[in-house]
């Protein structure tokens, strides 16, 4: 007999060592997430995956699955919380989607669509953030970074490099590059690195690939992120 937890009343099997997120994905249950990626150690920073485990708020991407857990995921209360979290992510940076190349392919935007987020609720920070266009093939727009650290983890764990890090705290938090000059061009980043490809938002863009897929024909224009996520991440968990 395999061990089980319940998610929204449904029995879900798990193996020792799996997180709630991993057990859910393997069973075809979507838990919203942005900083979680099946190929990398969890980071637990975006809080989109907030669930209630036996009445307690937890991050599904970091919390181990354990026998007897009663998990709430798809409830009105949690959807409202997740919407507030997403709204905070939007006002903390500068997300002007009509002028962003990532629109339609962006996971932050797709999660917001999925949550039926129609406004940003909070006052906007309009922080003054820079762009780094120094690299031959890769563009960084700090306005759209949500500090998920996926680029940091991908560079360390997949590319065997150490190009990115997060520096500073609170509103001064920012992404930095591993080079004397602090510029992206002086790092050993290549456009083919997973770190350059993995950004869930439009903060890292590959040059000369913009608008090859027209708006209206992009990933999330017609498909919701829960479906896309389960299709692409289901098998990655099994690897």
């Amino acid at each position, binding site marked *: 007999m395999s061990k089980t937890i319940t998610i929204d009343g449904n029995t879900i099997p798990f193996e020792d060592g799996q997180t709630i997120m991993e057990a859910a994905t393997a069973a075809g249950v979507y838990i919203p997430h942005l900083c979680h990626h099946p190929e990398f150690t969890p980071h637990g920073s975006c809080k989109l995956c907030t669930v209630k485990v036996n009445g307690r708020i937890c991050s599904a991407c970091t919390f181990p699955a354990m026998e007897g857990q009663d998990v709430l995921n798809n409830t009105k209360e949690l959807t409202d919380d997740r919407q507030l979290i997403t709204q905070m992510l939007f006002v903390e940076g500068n997300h002007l*989607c009509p002028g962003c190349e990532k629109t339609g392919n962006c996971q932050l935007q797709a999660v917001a669509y999925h949550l039926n987020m*129609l*406004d*940003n609720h909070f*006052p*906007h920070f*309009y922080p003054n953030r820079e762009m780094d266009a120094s690299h031959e093939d890769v563009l960084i727009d700090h306005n759209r970074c949500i500090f998920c650290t996926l680029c940091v983890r991908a560079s360390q764990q997949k590319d065997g490099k150490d190009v990115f890090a997060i520096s500073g705290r609170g509103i001064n938090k920012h992404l930095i590059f591993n080079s004397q000059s602090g510029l992206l061009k002086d790092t050993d980043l290549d456009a083919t690195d997973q770190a350059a490809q993995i950004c869930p938002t439009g903060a890292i863009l590959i040059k000369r690939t913009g608008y090859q897929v027209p708006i209206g024909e992009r990933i999330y224009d017609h498909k919701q992120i829960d479906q896309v996520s389960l299709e692409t991440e289901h098998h990655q968990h099994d690897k």
Partner: protein
Amino acid sequence: MTNKIRVATTSLAGCFGCHMSFLDIDERMLQLVEVVEFGRSPINDIEHCTDCDIGLIEGGVCNSENVHVLREFRKNCKILVAVGACAINGGLPAMRNFIPLEECLNEAYINGIGVENAQIPSDPELPLLLDKVRPIHEVVKIDYFLPGCPPSADVFWKFLTDLIDGREPSLPYELVHYD
């Protein structure tokens, strides 16, 4: 007095794109005016917003006149709606928020290419610019939001018909876009 639902519309710091998209409901406009009449709107040139049921606001606020008009709408509309990206988050006009106002004015009126008789306009009739472009929910209470740049004609149609038929307005996934 008729029993028609009164709708007012305006464009603040917007490009009228949302209004154009509203007009894209095309022949459905004939159905709409059976039950709706327009108060202040660029469609009819009525200048002031008096007692209305629904106010549709395109654009954020970038100057003192925008704030004045927005407050007039809030005072006179039972339901106030933020229409489009600029009303909701400042939109593309908010890209000037990262450049000091003085630099913006100098670039446009003093140092810009082809400028003659360089001077910054200061006629007392001109509304003063705000230091930053702001979304409208930061100034008055907003009841509903229609995202999109612009929201499609179907968004306007779905929202207005929901309201007119007495349903709580809602937008399905296919109608929610920020671009």
